[in-house]
C-alpha cells in the first residue's frame, strides 16, 4: 500500500469543498456558467491528455468528437424526445461518438505519429464539413438553438431542474469528478502503463509482445468516449450547438488547453482549460485579433514551458540544474 500523504489528502479535500461550495461562494451567475464551461472543456482536454500525454498520439481536431455527441444529443432532444432522461442522453452521446470514432480510429492507428496527426486533421475536417454543410439536419452555421433542457430523474425522484445554472453546475461537477476518477484508475492500471510504453518507444513495446495497434485503438476509443461525455454536458449546459464547437479553432484550443495545463497528469488540462477560457474571455473583450495572441502564446509555451503548468516545477528544476 503506498503511503498516504496527508498533506495531499487535505489539499484535495479543500479543493473538493471549494468546488462543491462554489455556487454559494460565487454570487454572480456568469461566473458559475464559466466554471461549468471550464469543467466541460477541462474534461475534453483531459481526454486529449489520455490520447496525447499517455498514448503519445497527437490530434489537432479532437473537438469534433465532442461535437458529434453534442449534436446527437441536441438533435435527439429537439426532434425526438424533449424530456429524455440524462442517462439515456449520456448513452446516446457516448454511443454516437464511439460509433464514429471506431472506424476512424482503426484506420488512423495503423499509421505513424506524424501521419496520425494529419489523418486526425483530415477526418476531423471531414466530419466538421459534413456537419456544417448538412443544413437541413444540423442548421448549418446557425446550429441548433432552443434545445429543451432535460430533467435529471432517479426513478421518480426529481434530482434537479436543468434550467437552473446551479443544478447544471452540480451535474457537470459530479460527472466530471466521476470521469476523472475512473480515468485515473484506468491510467494507473497495467493498461495505462502499456499506453505509456507505446508513447515512449513504440517499436520496443511491440518487441516485448504488446499488440501496439490494438492498444492504440483502445486509448483512442477511451479518449473519444470521454470527449463524448463532455459533448453531452455541453449541450445540456448551453441548450444550443453550433459548428464552432468542432471547427479547427476549437480543435486547436483543446490542444492548447492540454499543453498549457501539462500533459500526462490528467489534472493539468483542467488548469489549462481554466486559464485558457479566462484568457479567451478577457482578450476577446479587448480585441478581435485573439489569434495573434494565441499564436504567440503557443510559441512561447513550446519554447520555454513545454510541460505546462503541471510540469512547471519540473521546468524550474531543469533550469536551475543548467
Amino acid at each position, binding site marked *: 500500500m503506498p503511503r498516504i500523504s496527508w498533506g495531499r489528502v487535505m489539499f484535495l479535500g479543500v479543493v473538493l469543498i471549494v468546488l462543491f461550495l462554489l455556487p454559494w461562494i460565487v454570487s454572480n451567475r456568469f461566473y458559475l456558467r464559466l466554471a461549468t464551461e471550464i469543467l466541460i472543456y477541462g474534461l475534453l482536454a483531459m481526454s486529449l491528455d489520455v490520447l496525447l500525454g499517455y498514448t503519445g498520439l497527437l490530434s489537432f481536431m479532437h473537438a469534433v468528437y465532442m461535437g458529434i455527441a453534442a449534436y446527437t444529443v441536441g438533435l435527439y432532444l429537439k426532434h425526438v424526445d424533449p424530456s429524455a432522461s440524462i442517462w439515456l442522453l449520456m448513452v446516446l452521446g457516448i454511443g454516437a461518438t464511439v460509433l464514429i470514432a471506431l472506424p476512424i480510429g482503426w*484506420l488512423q492507428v495503423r*499509421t505513424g505519429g506524424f501521419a496520425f496527426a494529419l489523418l486526425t486533421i483530415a477526418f476531423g475536417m471531414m466530419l466538421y464539413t459534413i456537419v456544417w454543410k448538412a443544413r437541413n439536419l444540423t442548421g448549418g452555421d446557425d446550429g441548433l438553438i432552443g434545445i429543451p433542457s432535460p430533467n435529471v430523474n432517479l426513478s421518480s425522484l426529481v434530482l434537479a431542474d436543468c434550467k437552473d445554472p446551479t443544478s447544471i453546475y452540480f451535474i457537470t461537477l459530479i460527472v466530471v469528478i466521476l470521469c476523472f476518477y475512473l480515468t485515473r484508475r484506468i491510467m494507473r492500471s497495467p493498461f495505462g502503463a502499456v499506453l505509456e510504453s507505446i508513447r515512449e518507444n513504440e517499436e520496443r513495446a511491440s518487441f516485448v509482445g504488446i499488440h501496439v495497434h490494438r492498444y492504440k485503438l483502445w486509448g483512442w476509443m477511451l479518449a473519444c468516449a470521454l470527449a463524448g461525455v463532455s459533448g453531452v454536458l455541453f449541450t445540456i449546459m448551453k441548450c444550443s450547438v453550433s459548428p464552432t464547437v468542432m471547427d479547427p479553432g476549437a480543435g486547436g484550443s483543446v490542444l492548447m488547453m492540454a499543453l498549457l495545463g501539462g500533459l500526462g497528469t490528467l489534472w493539468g488540462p483542467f488548469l489549462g482549460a481554466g486559464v485558457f477560457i479566462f484568457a479567451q474571455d478577457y482578450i476577446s473583450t479587448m480585441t478581435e485579433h485573439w489569434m495573434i495572441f494565441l*499564436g504567440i502564446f*503557443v510559441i512561447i509555451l513550446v519554447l520555454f514551458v513545454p510541460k505546462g503548468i503541471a510540469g512547471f516545477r519540473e521546468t524550474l528544476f531543469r533550469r536551475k540544474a543548467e
Partner: protein
Amino acid sequence: MPSDLTFWVQTIINCLGLGSLLLLIAIGLNIIYGINRIVNLAHGSLYALGAYFGYTLVANGLNFFLALVVAPIMVLGIGLVVERSIIAPIRTRPMLYTLILTYGVSVLLDGLTKYFWGVQPRFISTPSFLSQTIHLGGIPYPFYRFFILIITFGVMAGLMFLLGKTKLGITMRAASNIPEMVSVLGINMNFVHVLVFGLGCGLAGIGGVIAGPLLTVYPMMGSEMLISCFIVLVIGGLGSLRGSVIAALLVGTVQTLGYVFITDYAMVVVYVMMAVILSFMPRGILGEGKFE
C-alpha cells in the same frame, strides 16, 4: 453526366491546373520535411502570405510578373526569420513539439494576415494577356490555367536540375539520406537547413501569388491549401518527390471532379480516398523517405 466535349476538355484542364498548383505548394512542404525533417504546419500561412503580398504589390502598381518574383522573396524573408528564431532551437526535441510550434506560428501568421488585410476577399488583377480566353480547336478556355501549368512545369524543371546536377542539390539529397555523413564531410548543415527552408518558403510564396488570381485571396486559403497539400504528401509518400507528382495530379483531379458533381461535399470524397489509400499503403504510394 454531360457528354459535351467542351465540358470535358475544360474539366480536364481544370484538373491539371489544380493538380499542378497543389504540386507546386506540396513540393515545398515535402522538401522541408525530406531534408530538414521538419513538418512545417505554417506552410499554408506562408502560402497565403504570398498571395496577400502579391495582392498588395499588384494593387500598388507593380507588374504582375515582377510581383511573382518579389512576393516569394518577401515570404522567404519571413520564413527565414521564423526558422532561425523559432524553429531551429527545438530541432533536437521530439517531432511533436515541432508540429505544435509550427502550428502556433501558423496561427500567429494567420492572425497577423487578418489584422493587416482584413477578412474581405481580395483579387489580384493579371495583365490582360494572361486573363484572356484562348481557343483550342474551337473550345474556349481561360489562358490562366495554362499559365499555372507552365509555371509549375518550369519550377519542377528547375528543381530537377538543382537536385540532379548542381553540387548544392546533391548535397541536399545526401542530407535527406544521412545528415551526419554530410556534416562529417565538412559541409555546414545549418547552412543547408536554412537554404532548404528558404527554398520551401519561396515555393509557397510563388504558389500563393499564382493561386491568387485563380482562387481569390481570402483568410482561409492557407488552411484549406495546407490540408490538401498534406493529403498529397501522405498519399504520395512523405519525402518522395515523384510520389508528390502523382498524388498531386490524383488529388487535383478528384477534387475538381468532386466540385463539379457534388460541390459541398467534394472534400469528403478526397478524404475518403485518402483513407482508402492509406489503409492499404500506409507509407504512401511510392513509400516514405525516398527523396527523388
